[in-house]
């Protein structure tokens, strides 16, 4: 899931300072399950902001709504009918949700209420850890299912650095050394030989180094199908 954290209240107040009527839009997917921007968090933030702005002497009209997913057109389109009532949208979606709203509603300012942090999982209740950096060229098959790109501070591909001490990372002792984890798991699986293969430098052109990325599936595109059907009829 995408993991996010709510921005500090003071920063959110700054972001909505120019608006009188604010619609908080929560998201019912990733940020709901990481307790950052779901219906409950939207209700709490709405109530908090109504009281905080009133105490500051300029109370704002603030309402909340939560959509199932902010990152797909069909879920946010129904919002359009009520947007005339608001000066600004305060999105509690991830960075993708904020941009989807901004792209769909070009006349309406959209500001983020969250900081999107990473892609990861809850390792226990209340603790989330990063697991994937979307590098575009997955090597988990070579590294015993543990990602050195997301979990090694130096993104090393051929074993740990000299800073690995007692299974911990030199960057921060709270970080387990990814290569220690890889070694232990490969050993337990009897697949240590896999680690002897030297990995060449990673092709970062499939990651952010290649600029913003795009995935196109021609077999799924509706415009493509229409053209195909029209072509077949001819």
């Amino acid at each position, binding site marked *: 899931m995408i993991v996010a954290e709510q921005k500090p209240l003071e920063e959110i107040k700054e972001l909505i300072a120019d608006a009188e009527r604010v619609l908080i839009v929560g998201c019912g997917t990733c940020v709901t399950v990481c307790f950052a921007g779901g219906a*409950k968090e939207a*209700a*709490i933030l709405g*109530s*908090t902001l*109504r*009281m905080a702005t009133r105490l500051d002497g300029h109370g704002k009209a603030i309402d909340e709504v939560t959509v199932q997913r902010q990152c797909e057109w069909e879920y946010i389109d129904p919002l359009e009918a009520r947007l005339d009532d608001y000066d600004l949208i305060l999105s509690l979606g991830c960075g993708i949700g904020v941009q989807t709203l901004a792209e769909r509603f070009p006349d309406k300012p959209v500001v983020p209420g969250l900081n999107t942090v990473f892609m990861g999982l809850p390792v226990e209740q209340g603790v989330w850890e990063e697991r994937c950096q979307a590098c575009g060229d997955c090597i988990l098959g070579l590294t015993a299912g543990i990602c050195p790109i997301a979990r090694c501070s130096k993104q090393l591909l051929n074993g740990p650095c000299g800073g690995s001490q007692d299974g911990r990372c030199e960057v921060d002792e709270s970080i387990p050394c990814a290569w220690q984890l890889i070694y232990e798991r490969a050993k337990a699986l009897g697949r240590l030989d896999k680690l002897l293969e030297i990995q060449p430098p990673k092709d970062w052109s499939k990651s952010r180094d290649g600029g913003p990325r795009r995935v196109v599936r021609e077999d799924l595109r509706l415009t493509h199908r229409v053209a195909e059907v029209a072509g077949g009829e001819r």
Partner: protein
Amino acid sequence: MTEFTPEIVAFCCRHCAYAAADLAGSLRIQYPPNVKVVEVPCTGRLDIVEVLHAFERGVDGVMAAG
């Protein structure tokens, strides 16, 4: 200057605190009118959102009794 009288909302569990308040009423025991009792199915149902909404509407204090 008049004395400050706080407005209190009391969220009371129907199985204990609310039942107790009900019994107190049957016994004609008085309690101050600035306490407003709201029956909840269980105080476990009480969410921070309800507490915030109470404060938003101007109460000075919230009591969860259960």
